[in-house]
Structures are given as structure tokens and as C-alpha cells.
């Protein structure tokens, strides 16, 4: 009950207050001056924005250009002896000197190892090497007719690799067993 009585007193006091308050000075001249003043030009920020856009577009275009532009084609002239791919274009092409050198080393080692083996095993190995050479010749022949055939190029490389693997394997096996100091 006490709360209700207090509220009633507050409402009555508020009703007794004046409904208009006059400012202590005349504010209108200031307002009128502000309203009558010329509008501030919007060109300045618009130009700034436009300039920013141009700058942004230009910068991004530049970045894009430098990112996607093709490097000038640098033609590297390689020594013909280093071009192993030449083997993939027919039997008349020459093998690289590095390959020929490796081949020579393997052949020298192989010949040494073959001397250790019986005539039968030696003949067997030589027959298989001849077989691989025949396979290489077949692929070479096919490549002369189809120089851009990827399958033939792959097979040729793999068959050359097989030739080296065979030569290495014979050497490794015989050396592993026969050159042991303890035997």
C-alpha cells in the first residue's frame, strides 16, 4: 500500500510541472546560418574513391599480368650426346655417350664374369642378351614408322633398362658368390 501511495504522490508532482521550457538564449540565428551555408562538394570523396578504384584495378591487373605472363622461351641448347631421347626415334639415332659409357662398363664387367661361368651358362646368358637386342631392334623398327608413339618409346627405354639390369645382375650374382674371401 505504501508503494501505491508514493506513486500517486510522484504522478501528482509531475503533473504540476510546466509543459514548456524556453531556452536561455535564441538559438535560431545559428541554425539558420548552418542551413543557409553552401553544400559541401561531394567531388572530393568521389574523386578519391575513383582514384582508389583505378589504383586497385591497376594494381591487381599488374599483379595478374606478372603472375600469368609466360616467361620468354629460353632455348637450351644441349649437347647432342646428352639427349637420351634420341634413342626413341629409330635405329639410326645414336645413343648418348653417357649411356654408351655405362654400357661399355657393364659389358666389360660382364665379360669378366662370363669367363668364370661354365660354357653352358655363358651361352645361356649370351642368348638372352641377344634376345633383348632383338627386342630393341624390333621396337626401333616400329619407331621408325611411328616415331611419336609413346608406348614404343616407353617400351624401348624399359627394354634398354632390362638389358642393363641383366648385365648388372649377372655380375652381382657371380661376384656375390664367387669373389667372397671366405670361399
Amino acid at each position: 500500500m505504501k508503494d501505491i501511495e508514493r506513486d500517486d504522490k510522484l504522478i501528482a508532482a509531475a503533473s504540476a510541472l510546466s509543459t514548456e521550457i524556453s531556452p536561455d538564449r535564441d538559438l535560431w540565428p545559428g541554425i539558420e546560418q548552418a542551413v543557409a551555408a553552401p553544400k559541401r562538394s561531394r567531388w572530393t570523396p568521389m574523386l578519391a574513391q575513383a582514384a582508389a578504384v583505378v589504383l586497385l584495378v591497376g594494381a591487381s591487373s599488374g599483379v595478374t599480368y606478372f603472375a600469368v605472363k609466360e616467361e620468354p622461351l629460353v632455348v637450351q641448347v644441349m649437347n647432342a650426346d646428352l639427349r637420351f631421347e634420341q634413342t626413341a626415334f629409330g635405329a639410326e639415332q645414336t645413343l648418348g655417350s653417357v649411356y654408351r659409357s655405362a654400357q661399355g662398363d657393364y659389358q666389360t664387367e660382364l665379360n669378366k664374369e662370363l669367363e668364370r661361368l661354365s660354357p653352358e651358362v655363358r651361352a645361356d646368358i649370351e642368348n638372352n642378351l641377344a634376345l633383348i637386342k632383338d627386342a630393341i631392334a624390333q621396337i626401333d623398327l616400329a619407331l621408325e614408322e611411328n616415331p611419336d608413339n609413346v608406348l614404343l618409346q616407353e617400351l624401348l627405354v624399359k627394354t634398354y633398362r632390362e638389358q642393363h639390369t641383366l648385365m648388372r645382375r649377372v655380375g652381382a650374382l657371380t661376384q656375390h658368390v664367387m669373389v667372397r674371401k671366405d670361399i
Partner: protein
Amino acid sequence: MKRTLVFLLGGLLVTPALAEQQVDKTIDAAANGSVEVYNTAGSITVRGWSRNSVQVTGEIGDDVEELVLERDGDDVLVKVKVPRSHGRDIDAEITVNVPQGSSIEVAGVSADIDVEGVNGDQSLQTVSGDVEVVGVSADLEAASVSGDVQVTGTGEDGDTSAATVSGDVSATDLAGELEAESVSGDVTVAGGSFDRVYFETVNGDLIFAAELRGGGRLAAESVNGDVEIDFKGEVSASFDIETFNGDIDNCFGPEPERTSRYAPGLELSFSQGDGDGRVVIETLNGGVSICN
């Protein structure tokens, strides 16, 4: 005089047979140790047994210097020692019993190698001779130059390499990863289950009749041999097959296409199942057949 000459000649003929020496040596060994066996000529038979010892038995030629059997920690060495200038009778036919859990390294020159019941890793090499292994359950490397290589597994995963130059390779009931190759012989993979198979030959045929696991890889290359693939069970892989001058038979549906108007080659690319595995086959003159 004539009888004396006949007697002497007869004696010469009989001498090599009498020259063989019987050997029987045993040494203690670790249950999971390593055993190295070297024998230049003759044969090497290795058997896994349940004892923790290594036993060597057999016959060695009269010109063999010594049969060495030594232990150094967990390693045992067996070697048939021959003179540097080989005599005419250095052959040795030996059987080596080793603890089942051993890993072994066996090498010969003109010797067959026969292994069974060894559970550890194995390295087996000979120049002229066959290699036969039964019960492979770990990593294996088996190689010959002039001879066949036959490997039989237990279905346990391992990393297997089997290679020969003049001879056939046969891999049965292996699992895991396999590399197999021959120059003039066939390579046959029968049974088993694989994550990765790579096999190649120059003039022999490649035959695969086994399971390729999900996500598995199979690559087969041949110059003049045929490739026959017969997948056991379902296969899920993308296939790329190309021949320069061979037919392609495919049970999975798609037909091969000519690689060029001017060349006889065929190519076939398709996906089977989820296509998560990969099969690549290339031949020059060989035909290709794929079924399951």
C-alpha cells in the same frame, strides 16, 4: 698286363664315387637368428625345424677343403670352402636344418637351392640352378640367372622379389607385394592376394590368376609375350591397356580402340567398381586378356 690296365681304368672310373665325404655337423643356434649358407656347386637344401640348432648333413667332394660351421652370437655361417684354383670335385650336396624362426641368406654358383619351413626373411641366389621355396611367410628375394624360380607362400603378407633370366618364375599363394621378372621365361602368379604386383618379361608370357585388393596396383610389361589376367574375386580399379601389335580381350565390357589409323595398336581404358585400384598393361607384340 691287359687285366692290370682294365683294373686301373676301372679304378679311375670308380674313384670319383668313392671320393665323396659324408658330413654331419651340428651347432647351437638362436631361435630367431640368421643363418648364411654358401656352396659353390651342387645343391643346397634348407629345412626349418623346431630345434634351436643348425645341422649340416650331406656329401662333399674330395677337393672341397672344408665344411665350415661357425656361430657368432645370433649368426651362424655354413660354407663349403673350396680351393681358389678349383679342383675337379668341389660339388657338395648339403642339407641344412635351421630353427624355424631364422632368417637365411643362401648363395650358390652352380647349385640348386631348395628351402622349406623357414619363417624369417630369406635371400636366395644362384647363377646356374633352380630356386624352390615353400612356405614363405616373410620377405623373400629369390634370384637365378639360368634356372627356374618357384615360390610358394602361406598367404601371409610379405615383400617378394623373384627373378630369373633364362627360366620361368612361378609364384603361388603369396600375399602383399610382388615383383617378378624373366627375360625369356614365363612368369606365373597363381593364387594369393596382393596390394601391389609388378611383373615383366621380354619374350615370355605373363599370367596372373589371383586377387588384387582394393586400391591395389598391378603393372605388367612384355615385349613379345602375352599377358593373361584372371582376377579372383571382385576387382575395383582403373585400367589402362595398350598394345602396339597385339589383341586385347576384355571380359569387363568395353571394347578396345585403335591407337592410330596407321598403326595396328589397340588401347583400352576403363574403370571397374569404385576404380580405386590401378592396372597398367603394355606389350609390343603380345596379346592381352583380362577376365575374372
